[in-house]
């Protein structure tokens, strides 16, 4: 058998996981190959040296630093795992508030750009137009928020809540 074909079997011996069959294949090969015998002896010697490398102790303060990181991560995890109803309400209200801010800002810009409104029977009522726009904005934003919240709740019910570890 070729020397090269012994590599995996020698690897198994070196990693202390060789079965009887692999071990005997290696021994049979070595019996007729002096070149491999020398290499094998050296590899075995190295294989005995490596496990003697001791375990380095963890640095000073390792546990305290881990405890700090652990506590911080747990606090973040708790915050993320707050009541789903709080999230739902926030998802609905937040876009509504944002829409109000955008609409009021737009109205203010409009008032600055068009300070004098034309008066008369055919003139557009900018106040009513603005109020309609504002209501439309708020409604659209809140509908979007409700849709998002419903989607999230469906996903959560399908997948289960994200794992909170040992909470």
């Amino acid at each position, binding site marked *: 058998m070729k020397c090269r074909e012994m590599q995996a079997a020698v690897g198994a011996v070196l*990693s202390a996981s060789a079965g009887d069959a692999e071990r005997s294949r290696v021994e049979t090969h070595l019996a007729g190959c002096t070149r491999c015998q020398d290499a094998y002896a*050296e590899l075995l010697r190295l294989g005995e040296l490596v496990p003697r490398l001791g375990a380095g102790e963890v640095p000073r303060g390792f546990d305290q630093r881990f405890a700090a990181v*652990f506590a911080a991560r747990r606090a973040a995890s708790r915050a993320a795992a707050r009541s789903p109803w709080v999230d739902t309400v926030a998802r609905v209200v937040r876009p509504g508030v944002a829409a109000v801010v955008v609409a009021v800002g737009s109205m203010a810009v409009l008032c600055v750009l068009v300070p004098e409104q034309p008066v008369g029977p055919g003139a557009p009522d900018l106040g009513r137009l603005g109020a309609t726009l504002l209501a439309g904005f708020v409604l659209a934003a809140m509908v979007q928020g409700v849709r998002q919240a419903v989607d999230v709740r469906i996903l959560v019910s399908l997948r289960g809540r994200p794992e909170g570890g040992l909470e």
Partner: protein
Amino acid sequence: MTDENLARQAAEGSPDAFWELYRRHRTAVFNLTLRILRDAGLAEDAAHESFLAAYEHIGRYDEHRGKFMSWLLAIAHHECCRVRRRRRWLVFMGGGDEEGAADMAVSGAVAPQRGLGADESVDLERALARLPEKFRSPILLTKLHGLSVAECGAVLGISATNVKQRVFRGFQLLRLLYGSVEPRAAGRRAASGPAGGFDR
């Protein structure tokens, strides 16, 4: 109590069980990350991240698929790969040194030896540190952490046969590197001669 029992308790919500697992395995995890990353600071961060990931996902640990230790070392190895990728990217962007001047034998994190001379131990650590990662990890996992080739394969995501091949090639390379550490090993190199065998 076995690790697997503790992991089950931890998954059921016992922080004490998790801390016991942490106490049992922190040294092994730190040693693996240190020998892969060769930088004490990065190794500590990687070990911490590994335990945090284990804590968050302990419910996914399945004792029928292997020992808790293998599962934990797989997480640590994965974390080390992530750190190394990030470090390579930083090097590419010109923001750091890939080796990080990271000779752990010099940086004070050298492991105490058991039955090895101090010089021999340092030389061996240096030779191990110079091994390419694909050969170093199988040697570390099987020889230092006592995993079987199947468990090691599961950790690294390769077959058991591949692990055996890598262990063999790793030791072949280690033989060359260990024999070429200057200047203390000059005698060893002369005695060992050029590496050969199992190559025809």
